[in-house]
């Protein structure tokens, strides 16, 4: 803690000095060249999904033309008659081919579907002013439905901004929020296009977007939703970008890929309990040539905050043939009453007997934690201190950051509000929120808007995400 005026000046002055740095041009070039070399050498790719991390493919593939196996050729003929599929080498598509290749190759299901001629050719395109949205391909299988798209015609926008002090977000030491701080920049929400699968056959749908990539021909990305419930359905997409909005609908079919999949329901009573009454019920398993999907329900109080699922206490995996297989994707949908969540976890393909292991899960616990907006303000969760390490407020936008030691009891906080000196509370609706986790520390950041004239003196959390420990082990039905 600061002990005198000189140390305060020293700390603040050094931080201002560091934050005033500007990228030097030659280092910029060195970094870009290094990234280009490294990307070519390792072929590593990555994407961001909303939940569990994915495993990147080991190297980029140049997509080869569809195999000429008789069965797949026959299938392709059937599909061409109804839903045309990709033909030829996608990698050869001018300028966007490498990006589409990366999207397909980093997903085992998409890769298999491509190699077997099962990616439906894009047949839908829509415009709004100069913006053109084109569906490049659709892949529907019993695990998910993915649309690969391209957006062109609208210039891109810039990326993230720094905090008001110019410091890297999350780096500044606690300072009391004061009205005299310079205004925080507005978060750049227009940097990426917003693409959503709004409905399937008229029913509202949840979707998750893979980070789009900017190419010379515009943005290329992928958006996915759950598996179609029947062989074909109408998808409706909604797109917003750069002030433009459009929607478009088209048919997608899973008939081709479904022929290679097998769903097995779990026996009645496939249920177990983690700590604190969290109940897990295994529903079914879908086996495909490239992937295995485990579907299960978890009955628990919802935790409404984000968290990082790293570490062993929350790991889920399959044990098969002496190997451990970690999930490559994970999605969930809450019941209408919020009492349970249906989870879909995708693993690499499994053959032979296998077990599904759940080491732990996260549930929400109501609480009230209050941090004064002063340096080093602390609260305790299950004996572990959670320290408010940063709080900035410019009269309109509020930003706060907490840190706590990585542990196996809780993962974070949620349902924040701020209070003023009279005790009036204002709920924080985040414009951005993040959780970063290392082996030692978790950092939680939130940025939210406040009404004009509201002067916060404290920030509160009304919920913590607790870990219900296991393990639970299920034999996967075959």
């Amino acid at each position, binding site marked *: 803690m600061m002990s005198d005026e000189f*140390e305060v000046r020293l700390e603040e*002055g050094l931080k201002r*000095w560091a934050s005033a*740095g500007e990228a030097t041009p030659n*280092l910029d070039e060195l970094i870009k060249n290094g*990234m280009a070399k490294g990307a070519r050498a390792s072929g590593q790719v990555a994407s961001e999904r909303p939940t569990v*991390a994915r495993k990147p493919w080991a190297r980029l593939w140049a997509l080869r033309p569809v195999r000429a196996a008789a069965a797949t050729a026959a299938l392709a003929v059937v599909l061409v008659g109804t839903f045309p599929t990709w033909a030829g080498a996608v990698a050869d598509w001018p300028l966007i081919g490498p990006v589409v290749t990366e999207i397909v190759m980093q997903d085992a299901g998409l890769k298999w579907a491509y190699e077997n001629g099962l990616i439906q050719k894009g047949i839908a395109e829509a415009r709004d002013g100069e913006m053109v949205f084109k569906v490049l391909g659709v892949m529907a299988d019993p695990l998910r439905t993915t649309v690969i798209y391209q957006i062109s015609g609208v210039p891109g926008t810039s990326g993230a901004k720094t905090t008001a002090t110019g410091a890297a977000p999350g780096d500044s030491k606690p300072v009391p929020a004061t009205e005299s701080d310079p205004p925080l920049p507005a978060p750049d929400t227009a940097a990426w296009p917003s693409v959503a699968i709004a409905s399937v056959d008229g029913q509202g749908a949840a979707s998750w977007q893979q980070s789009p990539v900017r190419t010379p021909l515009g943005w290329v990305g992928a958006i996915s939703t759950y598996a179609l419930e029947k062989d074909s359905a109408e998808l409706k997409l909604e797109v917003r970008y750069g002030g433009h909005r459009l929607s478009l609908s088209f048919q997608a079919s899973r008939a081709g890929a479904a022929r290679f999949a097998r769903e097995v329901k779990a026996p009645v009573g496939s249920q177990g309990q983690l700590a604190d009454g969290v109940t897990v019920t295994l529903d079914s398993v879908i086996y495909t040539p490239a992937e295995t999907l485990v579907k299960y329900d978890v009955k628990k109080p919802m935790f409404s905050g984000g968290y990082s699922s790293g570490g062993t206490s929350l790991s889920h995996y399959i044990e098969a043939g002496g190997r451990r297989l970690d999930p490559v994707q994970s999605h969930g949908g809450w019941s209408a009453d919020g009492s349970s969540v249906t989870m879909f976890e995708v693993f690499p393909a499994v053959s032979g007997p296998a077990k599904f292991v759940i080491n732990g899960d996260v549930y929400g616990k109501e609480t009230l934690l209050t941090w004064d907006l002063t340096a080093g303000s602390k609260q305790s969760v299950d004996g572990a201190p959670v320290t408010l390490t940063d709080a900035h407020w410019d009269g309109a936008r509020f930003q706060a950051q907490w840190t706590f030691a990585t542990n196996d009891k809780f993962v974070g906080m949620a349902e924040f509000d701020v209070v003023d000196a009279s005790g009036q509370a204002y709920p924080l609706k985040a414009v951005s929120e993040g959780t970063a986790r290392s082996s030692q520390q978790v950092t939680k950041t939130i940025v939210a808007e406040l009404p004009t004239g509201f002067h916060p003196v404290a920030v509160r959390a009304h919920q913590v995400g607790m870990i219900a420990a296991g393990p639970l082990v299920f034999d996967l039905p075959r």
Partner: protein
Amino acid sequence: MDFMEWLRPHQGYLERVALALLGNRADAEDAVQEAVLDAYRNRHQLRGGQAAFGAWVRRILLNQCRRAIAKRRGLVPIGDLAENAAVQAVPGPDEEATDLWNMVSRLGEHLRQVIVLHYMLDYSQAEIADYLGIPLGTVKSRLGKALSILRRWDRQEEGIGHDVGRV
């Protein structure tokens, strides 16, 4: 993730942190380049999205600087004032920040590092000891000594007269 777009707001800060810890621009550039490439190769491990990117890449840089510092162990610093003027007087956003950095940059490497880690990067004394691989007592001693020197220079800057002596 558009990696370069995410990196851009933080790059200047990372360069200054590396310069402050390593003391010369060449080593700092090497460290930043290695750290950024490391981050790029492992970008799929980032959790928390863009909001967490800055703190995450900073941690990678600090690990890189730690390795660079460890490699130098065994070289005995000469005195508490660096004879090497390699840590340049680099301007800050205002006169006070510039003056404070200039004072810190004149310290010997082992004193400068503890000041940078504690005051610029918020490391606790225990964390500094772990980071530099030195006893906690040594950290306390270096911090005390560095602060004593800096306070004296600060008073001299303000014109409170004392003889300037070598430490």
